[in-house]
């Protein structure tokens, strides 16, 4: 409807422009300070949790090794086994003192072990070889 459209009225338009100009500077310093105070309080609230993700913490080399073998329980097991090995090597119990040859059932060379058949091609070759090395 044409009659519903804004009619041009220089007087009113002048008043509106003046009001607009005054409004642009109309807030008191106290109100501006209150609004800015709210802004900073709110800003602090959401800046803190939104901290930039930091780089993952550096893991020491020994920690990565420990993790690789399965953690502290695994390390303790390894240490116990190592100590036991050293102990057995330095002061072997009597039960472990035996002659390796006795354990294998031989005392005069491979020929009498009985594990090698002296007959046949491989037996001859083996025995010949041993004989040569002994000779």
């Amino acid at each position, binding site marked *: 409807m044409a009659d519903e459209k804004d009619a041009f009225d220089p007087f009113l338009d002048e008043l509106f422009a003046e009001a607009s100009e005054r409004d642009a500077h*109309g807030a008191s310093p106290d109100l501006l300070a209150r609004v800015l105070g709210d802004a900073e309080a709110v800003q602090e609230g959401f800046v803190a949790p939104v901290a930039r993700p930091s780089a993952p913490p550096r893991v020491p080399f020994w920690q990565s090794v420990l993790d690789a073998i399965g953690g502290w329980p695994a390390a303790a097991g390894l240490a116990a086994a190592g100590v036991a090995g050293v102990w057995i090597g330095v002061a072997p119990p009597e039960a472990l003192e035996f002659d390796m040859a006795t354990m294998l059932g031989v005392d005069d060379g491979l020929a009498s072990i009985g594990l090698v058949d002296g007959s046949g091609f491989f037996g001859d070759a083996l025995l010949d070889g041993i004989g040569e090395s002994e000779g």
Partner: protein
Amino acid sequence: MPLDAQSDLDDEVLLVRFANGDRDAARALTLRLTPRVLAQATRMLRNRAEAEDVTQEAMLRLWKAAPDWRQGEAKVSTWLYRVASNLCIDRLRRAPQVALDAVPEPEDDAESAEERLQGDARMAALDAALAELPDRQRQAVILRHIEGLSNPDIAEIMDIGVEAVESLTARGKRKLAELLKGRRAELGYTDG
């Protein structure tokens, strides 16, 4: 970034910067938007103290909305006017309207005392005439002619169609012209 360098930035850009912790952006937005919201609220409520409360509340809602602001969806100023407008309407519904407080106008050294008095008289006359308008007409006229918003923006703020905005502003302007008709010379208007 210094405040001067922020003055040309779009409201939305400033709001994003604000959400990212930029304090200068908070200052720039405060200085830019607070007077506009205050003016709208003062003219709607005709009570300076209440208008300041509404302005602070509207701005607080803007600050809180900043981190979730969806860029490109709504203009910051339109959103803010809408919030302020709703807050004003709530207050108008709750309490009976009171006479407009004596609103101290900012002093401008460049203006002579006589000019200032004339200007004060003109603004008082305009405010008094605006106060005569029904709430919706007054709101539309203020947003269109004093705040300088577009009709589609006002339609969004007032939750009505653009045609309804045109109708409200036209009727409001006609009524204002009628109310001020006999005071043109007194208010220093000589051309009309």
